[in-house]
């Protein structure tokens, strides 16, 4: 298994500001992902964080709004930029060791935009 530490665990932010969420894995992993989970809905993949290159974004998500960094094989950040109340959600970091392995999750960041 992999232990994933995510911070902050929660935050309340003002409209128009940005928040950076950090994700630290206790060992090197091949793949890291960022998901959004809204109440009563399935997990939605925002992007795959690629080590040493630009993240791969899913349809409906763009780099200007959700810039992602992954400087090494154990760490990644997601920034939610120019926030609006619609960005209020739980943001989850996930990691996989390989393409045929299971995914592990951090405890999530509960974001409220006011």
């Amino acid at each position, binding site marked *: 298994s992999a232990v994933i530490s*995510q911070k902050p665990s929660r935050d309340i932010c003002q409209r128009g500001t940005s928040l950076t969420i950090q994700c630290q894995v206790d060992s090197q992993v091949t793949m890291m992902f960022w998901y959004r989970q809204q109440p*009563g*809905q*399935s997990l939605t993949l925002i992007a795959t964080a690629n080590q040493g290159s630009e993240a791969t974004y899913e349809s409906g998500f763009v780099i200007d709004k959700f810039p992602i960094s992954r400087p090494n094989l154990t760490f990644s950040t997601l920034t939610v930029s120019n926030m609006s109340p619609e960005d209020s959600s739980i943001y989850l970091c996930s990691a996989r060791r390989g393409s045929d392995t299971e*995914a592990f*999750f951090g405890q*999530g960041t509960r974001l409220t935009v006011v």
Partner: protein
Amino acid sequence: QKEVEQDPGPLSVPEGAIVSLNCTYSNSAFQYFMWYRQYSRKGPELLMYTYSSGNKEDGRFTAQVDKSSKYISLFIRDSQPSDSATYLCAMGSNTGNQFYFGTGTSLTVIP
């Protein structure tokens, strides 16, 4: 049609009951199947991971996969109040890194 369908519940059972949670899917390319448990205000916790049809057992939990019917199940025996959580199914394929999740089933086990 969604990739993965899961009954959201809520499901309420007495302590000691056998719980059956189910998901159906449409993509025959899915080869990896997972069940996660998510407590309120926590991240999903992996319960079961399997990549073949049939049953896989781990303690009180049994995961069942029927690829011909595109149907997966999670059985919880001797359910406990501590099993009260949302259960998410997830699946993926060799053709991509993304996992597809169900919406989750909310389970309450009543003492």
